[in-house]
């Protein structure tokens, strides 16, 4: 029972991280009609920046804030130099060009930080277990990820639904010409949205950094999960991305945690420990396949263009 609570929290935490990544991706896609494979690279850069800046400044908080700013700037620079020339182009062109960027970033990281991964040690005050309900302890850091990510999600919701910028973003997603007709500086809006997406990806990366090793290619697997989330949630839909991200995070985490035991009830122990990891990796894709069969446009499609 305690394990279930803990694993559910882990699932929630992973889902929220996925949401940060997917939200940026789906915003950029919804508004600029732009597929950015290099989104995962920004996630990776966020983690590398954090590991570096924390080591430099000797302060976890300061390092993380610097890393966040650096990812934001990197995203804006990337948009300004390269990506804005790809708006309005074929999705295939965008995929190939940003694929080139992934190759670039992976080797750039290898050149700068070396092929071995980095680690980002947590300060002592974040390593203590917190008692969340009587008898259930949960690491303070993972708890703070949940809190921060929820806060960011809420903030994002407020920005998108309640502010003037958000109105423009929503209008842009449903009707690109209208925004132009309103006399808004679209180029600036796009740059801002892209920067926001980059910062969200960077945030996800730097928060994940203390839990996993910071390494080359870390953004790629999680990018594909973010794609799956967007497909399940419906392209361009923030709400869909949120629901699907939590769902996927839960299934992935709980599947890994409990599937081996469940399988052991029906299979021999050896067969179960062979099949379980593969099956739990597949669970999400099976889910995606089911969603595709039932609702090809996703569970929570954004309003029709």
């Amino acid at each position, binding site marked *: 029972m305690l394990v279930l609570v803990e694993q559910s929290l882990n699932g929630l935490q992973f889902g929220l991280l996925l949401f940060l990544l997917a939200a940026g991706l789906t915003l950029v*896609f919804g508004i600029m009609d732009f*597929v950015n494979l290099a989104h995962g690279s920004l996630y990776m850069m966020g983690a590398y920046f954090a590991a570096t800046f924390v080591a430099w400044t000797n302060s976890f908080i300061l390092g993380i804030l610097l890393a966040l700013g650096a990812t934001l700037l990197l995203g804006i620079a990337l948009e300004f130099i*390269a990506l804005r*020339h*790809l708006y309005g*182009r074929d*999705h*295939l*062109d965008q*995929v*190939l*060009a940003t*694929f*080139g*960027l*992934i*190759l*670039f*970033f*992976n*080797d*750039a990281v*290898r*050149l700068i930080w070396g092929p071995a991964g980095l680690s980002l040690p947590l300060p002592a005050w974040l390593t203590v277990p917190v008692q969340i309900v009587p008898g259930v302890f949960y690491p303070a850091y993972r708890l703070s990820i949940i809190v921060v990510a929820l806060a960011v999600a809420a903030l994002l919701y407020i920005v998108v639904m309640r502010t003037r910028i958000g109105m423009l973003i929503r209008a842009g997603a449903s009707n690109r010409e209208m925004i132009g007709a309103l006399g808004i500086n679209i180029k600036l809006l796009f740059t801002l949205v892209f920067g926001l997406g980059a910062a969200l990806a960077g945030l996800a990366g730097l928060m994940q950094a203390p839990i996993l090793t910071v390494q080359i290619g870390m953004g*790629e*697997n999680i990018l*594909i999960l973010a*794609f*799956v989330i*967007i*497909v399940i949630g419906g*392209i361009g839909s923030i709400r869909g991305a949120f629901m699907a991200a939590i769902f996927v995070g839960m299934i992935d985490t709980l599947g890994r945690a409990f599937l081996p035991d469940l399988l052991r009830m029906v299979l021999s122990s050896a067969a179960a420990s*062979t*099949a379980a*990891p*593969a*099956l739990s*990796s*597949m669970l999400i*894709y099976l889910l*995606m*396949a089911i969603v*595709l*069969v039932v609702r*090809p446009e996703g569970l929570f499609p954004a309003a029709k263009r």
Partner: protein
Amino acid sequence: MKSHINVRNVVVALVALGLLLLPLYSAVTGNIFILTLFTRIVIFALAAASLNLIMGYGGMMSFGHAAYLGIGGYAVGILAYEGIGSGFIQWPVALAASALYALVIGALSLRTRGVYFIMITLAFAQMAYYIASGLSRYGGDDGLTIYKRSTFGGLIDLSNRVQFYYLCLFCLFGGVYLIWRIINSRFGMVVRGVRSNEQRMQAIGFHANRYRLVCFVISGTICGLAGALLANNTDFISPAGMYWTRSGELMVMVVFGGMGSLFGPVLGTIVFLLLEEVLSQFTEYWALIMGPLLLLIVLFARGGIMGVLGRFSRG
């Protein structure tokens, strides 16, 4: 009658001739490395040509083609591991497994269009990658060494470099010829028509997705053959060979050469892999150059090599 002698066709003919004579050059100069390199190039060219069938002619932007390289390879590797060394069994199994995978993935993915299709083929290929990683009996993440190449009852010896090269080249030319017949057949006309205007094709009585799916399966099957060849070439098969960046590289080869031109992917593969080879001799960090180069090609050289040659051809 239009003249068939133009820059583009001359280049294609010269390249084909060069590929045919390469073992001769290798034997005369004693340069074995170039034969090894080009065996690999020829195999990837076959994979790229198969991808071009769905991308260039069918308008299906699959980002999961590396899965077939893996499936074809694992069919050979697993059967070899289990003691079945005959290519007459291994290779048909490799093709059938690829076809089956393509049928299932295609039926699901083709419910969607555009970016969704790109993402979903990518995700399914990644699923195949995880499954391969989970095959602990066959090496899991570490992969599986193939100790003995496929045997064909003494007809051909795959361990002989020259024989193996010519087998690969035969498969490539055969594959390109097959694709040429297909795209000009009734079936191919429908597939290209669907790419051009799906609604119109539906309105004149074609069930567009049925044709798309069959095309998707043909493409996957051809790529499965490339996978069987590749496994024999490297004597090794691992999940890393079907990682999604491999799918991306295949797309790059197709676009480098010129999407929707018959021989373009072959040229694209030669250029891409030679470039990779040359760059990596200069620097360990070759992708630092390849990445931005890719971006520039997408931005400024649409139509790829064939497109550029075509411009020469028209004068």
